[in-house]
């Protein structure tokens, strides 16, 4: 074969390869979508006065057209993909972490471990949570190392090459067990009960003594996840001026920026946090998660770094709702009037404080229900366990205590043969009622809501 033919064959072969390569690749850019550029503005958005209008959302059109850009839809030139290795063991001491095999992999640009983080702790009230566990693992979802690679697949493969040597330590999973003196301490030397709240009003023992009936009940709730459609996602870009821009699914950027500044030991004005439209929050995106890790990986590599939690990580490594064990004791008069109530709440805080103090406070304040109760004693405490941390979730303890006080209310109504609607109307707050904390309440419409719902449902009609 002469030289010319060989060259031609080679070029054909190369071309075939190139075509195959192109065919195999996913398109780098979404195909163009045709949609009308001229928007029809619905009337409700154009009318005055604006308040009270059923105005549509400008983002609704983008959602409908699939044009909303979430974090995972954003890409920057040279961007890397980060993945976090999770401990998978609930309580352990980390003897050593060997990242050498991962670092040697082609395509892996950087690996980060906890000790490289300037201030490796965060939390909205207690800073008890490491960004990456560097000495102790407190729950199975803890991150122990992070990898930035040119593709997500390489980053995932690199995680398997990181070898962590654990020394298993005693763990405690049940909040009532964790309260015992001999229970393993999650954050030794501190005890497992890390916050308490008490609300006292009137004289609860006197109220019980004056009551015709005493009712008691224990109620329990489970741990649940927020399950937003969009998982936690962020992209960090550390620029040559030493300024870091973070696109994040964070729901509270101002406070998030301060937390990031603290962990990175950076002045606040060198951090920019940009949030896009968030694909669901429900309380789960109220604190930083991987943002400082991505920032440091970006600093190490000089490239933008993206991190998106898997659904598994959403469950195991982001906050969840507090399971609560709720003990209620209520003294009532013959007519159903509540005279005294005692409440005890034990919240399972999981491995870290997160928003537990807020949840504890709100649950305790709200635990008596929207009712006039002159004699009240409510106490709440939250304990560490070696489980996924519990934090802010739609209602901050209110759905749990509402389940308890309203179940309890129906039990009282049934025992006294009073209609559930009537017993609520008898006890509910009025305008000017004093709350359990002694606050004089205004714009109180709990009775209106009871009557309105009952009327709409046909409550009285259905009774006969």
């Amino acid at each position: 074969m002469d030289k010319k033919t060989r060259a031609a064959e080679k070029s054909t072969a190369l071309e075939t390869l190139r075509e195959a390569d192109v065919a195999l690749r996913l398109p780098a850019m979404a195909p163009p979508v045709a949609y009308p550029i001229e928007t029809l503005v619905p009337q409700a958005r154009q009318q005055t006065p604006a308040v009270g209008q059923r105005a549509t959302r400008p983002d609704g059109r983008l959602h409908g057209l699939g044009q909303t850009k979430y974090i995972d839809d954003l890409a920057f030139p040279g961007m890397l993909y980060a993945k976090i290795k999770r401990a998978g063991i609930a309580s352990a001491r980390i003897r050593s972490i060997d990242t050498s095999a991962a670092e040697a992999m082609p395509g892996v640009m950087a690996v980060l471990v906890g000790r490289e983080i300037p201030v490796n702790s965060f939390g909205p009230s207690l800073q008890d949570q490491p960004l990456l566990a560097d000495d102790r693992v407190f729950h199975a979802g803890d991150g122990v190392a992070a990898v930035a690679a040119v593709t997500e697949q390489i980053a995932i493969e690199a995680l398997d090459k990181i070898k962590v040597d654990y020394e298993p330590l005693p763990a405690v999973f049940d909040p009532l067990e964790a309260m015992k003196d001999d229970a393993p301490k999650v954050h030794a030397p501190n005890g497992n009960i890390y916050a308490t709240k008490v609300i006292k009003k009137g004289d609860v023992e006197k109220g019980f003594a004056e009551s015709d009936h005493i009712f008691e009940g224990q109620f329990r709730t489970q741990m649940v996840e927020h399950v937003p459609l969009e998982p936690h996602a962020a992209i960090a870009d550390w620029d040559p001026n030493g300024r870091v821009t973070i696109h994040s699914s964070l729901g509270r950027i101002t406070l998030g920026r301060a937390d990031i500044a603290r962990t990175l030991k950076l002045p606040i004005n060198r951090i920019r946090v940009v949030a896009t439209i968030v694909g669901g929050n429900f309380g789960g995106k109220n604190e930083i998660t991987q943002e400082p890790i991505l920032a440091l990986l970006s600093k190490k590599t000089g490239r933008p770094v993206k991190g998106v939690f898997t659904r598994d990580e959403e469950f195991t490594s982001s906050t969840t709702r507090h399971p609560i064990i709720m003990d209620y004791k209520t003294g009532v008069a013959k007519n159903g009037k509540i005279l005294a109530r005692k409440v005890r709440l034990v919240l399972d805080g999981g491995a870290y404080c997160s928003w537990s103090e807020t949840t504890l406070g709100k649950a305790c304040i709200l635990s008596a229900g929207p009712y006039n109760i002159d004699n009240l004693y409510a106490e709440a405490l939250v304990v560490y366990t070696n489980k996924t941390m519990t934090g802010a979730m739609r209602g901050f303890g209110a759905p749990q205590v509402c389940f308890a006080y309203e179940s309890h209310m129906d039990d009282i109504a049934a025992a006294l043969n009073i209609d559930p609607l009537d017993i609520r109307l008898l006890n509910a707050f009025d305008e000017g009622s004093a709350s359990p904390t002694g606050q004089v309440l205004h714009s109180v419409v709990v009775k209106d809501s009871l009557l309105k719902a009952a009327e709409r449902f046909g409550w009285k009609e259905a009774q006969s």
Partner: protein
Amino acid sequence: MKRRGRGIACMWYPIGFTVSANPSAAVVKVNEDGTATLLTGTVETGQGSLTVLGQIAAEALGIATDDVHVVSADTDATPMDTGAIASRTTYVTGNAVKLAAEKAKAILFEVAAPMLGVKPDQLEAKDRQIQVKGYPQRNLPIGTVANHAQVVMGQPAIGSASYNPPTVGMDPETGQGKPFSTYVYATQIAEVDVDDETGEVNVIRIVAAHDCGTAINPMLVEGQVQGGISMGIGFALQEEILFDTNGRQINPNLTNYIMPTSLDMPEIDVDIVDSYDPTGPFGAKGVGEPTSVPTAAAILNAIHNAVGVRITSLPATSEKVLTAIQAKRTQETKRIPA
């Protein structure tokens, strides 16, 4: 056999943080043509808060919702905000937006007063006009005034403000204090079918009457209530993170962690209770979190009403309900005198 039951639950819920400061700031800029731009540091997390904040700014300036463009969530460009948490956006950020818009409006009134031959306090902003109170025939389009303010008077109509709900710290011994500025109230009534042979619970209908103060946008309030109820149904009947004995989750995926889908949704009737809070923007309070608070309680009370068993731990799975029904039957059989 399917047995029908109904259950009621009411609740109260506070707006904003417990005692702690949770301020929001806002900037409102009126453009030369009378449209406006609102800068806010809060984040749209799907609830429609930016639309509501735009409506509040528009109301304060006497213009329409579509006249206000909302820029949000960039720490370099937008002012401080505590964020989308604690059902606080409409109330706290809304108050800041209203105050900021009123400051911008004050500049417009100052500029318009000599143009209309009256004092600034005689003016009002309504229907995209700056007009004299009680004599609306004397008016100027808001765009004319805004343009005059910027181009002729050199005084662009820009206002910024912040708001923090007033609270009083709680006594550490007794918990007495004013932890929140305001509260909302709600009632939900659930109707369920319980199959007493399988324990399966089917939610047929939920009637929800919610207080949010003034409904700035009734459609978005309804959306929040419907979404909250779907979360409440999952909490009541299906969702639960399970752990093995070593503290590892065993169902961290959507195959084994069961949550409601659109097929599980009951018929929902939403009522907005008439209410006005003088401390909120145009009387508004909030609605986000409370919508999922009473749902589980109402459903569990409906189960009790249907089959006479009290489930005291959530979720009320079919297994749990059936076990309780069987236990009740056994107990009743024992009671029959020999």
